[in-house]
């Protein structure tokens, strides 16, 4: 980055940090700039990386007429601009929704259900590992019964669900504590940018 760019980046970094004190014109400016610049960037990326190579080039250079189908669907999407024609967009939405629901069904069954079951059904190791594996099984069944909706949390089901809640709490506490480090790393990087790249206060910068 050039000196000018570094100063711009440093100024915007401070604008965002000022939000921690309270909402203020600097944060508000940075926020509005960010929204506009990112929306514009994404639109330009779609133009360069999707519309040109996937529609424009195949249609005009290779004369591939199948491209007209997605093009038509896309134009139907744009029909929402006026309320009169808005209902035309339902066809494009229906296609889009159908595709992603269809992808999801085998995808979730494979990656999220069968893969997890296969892992849960692995034979127990020997020694202390068996104790941990047993605990995983108990917790797994407990949490599963917490998510059982067709019966109230009473009796044996209630006890299992209770065990499930304990496991959930430990899991949530562990993920929370585990994430702190990654978040602090992000802050360290910004502080290193401000104090190193910008102000040259850090050793070796």
């Amino acid at each position, binding site marked *: 980055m050039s000196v000018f760019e570094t100063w711009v980046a440093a100024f915007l970094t401070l604008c965002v940090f000022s939000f921690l004190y309270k909402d203020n014109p600097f944060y508000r400016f940075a926020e509005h700039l960010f929204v506009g610049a990112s929306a514009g960037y994404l639109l330009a990326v779609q133009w360069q990386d999707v519309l040109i190579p996937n529609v424009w080039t195949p249609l005009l250079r290779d004369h591939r007429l199948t491209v007209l189908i997605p093009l038509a669907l896309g134009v139907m999407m744009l029909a929402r601009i006026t309320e009169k024609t808005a209902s035309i967009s339902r066809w494009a939405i229906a296609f889009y929704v159908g595709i992603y629901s269809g992808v999801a*069904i*085998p995808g979730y069954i494979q990656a999220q259900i069968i893969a997890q079951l296969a892992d849960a059904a692995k034979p127990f190791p020997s020694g202390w590992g068996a104790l941990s594996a047993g605990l995983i099984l108990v917790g797994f069944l407990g949490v*599963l019964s917490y998510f059982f909706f067709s019966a109230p949390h009473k009796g044996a089901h209630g006890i299992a669900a209770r065990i499930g809640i304990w496991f959930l709490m430990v899991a949530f506490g562990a993920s929370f504590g585990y994430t702190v480090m990654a978040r602090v790393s992000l802050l360290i990087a910004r502080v290193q940018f401000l104090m190193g790249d910008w102000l040259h206060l850090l050793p070796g910068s």
Partner: protein
Amino acid sequence: MRRGPLLVTFLSGTVIAALFFIPHHKAQEFNSTLLGWTLVVYAFALALGSLSLWENHARKIRTRSEGWPYSLVTLGALLIVTGLGIWKGVAEGTPVGRIYNSVNSPLGSTMFSLLAFVIASAAFRAFRARSPEATLLLLTAIVMMIGRVSIGELMSDKLPGITEWLLDVPNLAAKRAIAIGVGLGAVSTALKIILGIERSYLGRS
């Protein structure tokens, strides 16, 4: 009027779900063609979205509502970045590439780094031993936070091992059960859509 779109959803959903099981190269080609079409629909939707952004901020300026000058910043940035990106491209080294590095990137990573602050304030407020479950959550989080850094290792050389056990045993048990529950919920939701039981996405609740 909605019967046609429902049929489109049903057909596109079942076809793409079926393609999951057909490894034939022609079938897989068709699979990627269908997914490619959704990319084009997305690009048009993004144009529509950007119009919505434009319209929202233009309205603020027209009606001179509170803070309207900030909307000028958003619209200006949107216009400039979109224009430059379509004209000169978005790769590294182009004007938009430079804008991205000195505006979008520092703004994004600084927003991200605010998490280091809010994760601390959330912990202070929420980790209160008001019930046995809440106590379990906060104790796990504390062990986790201390055990992952040097100071924890100085306190006890067992701590890092305990943190890994917490991640690998109770955390894994809970996550596994949640994953299976989420997977089943997702599959049933997707099935409801393909079968036309759920049609709120077409504006019919």
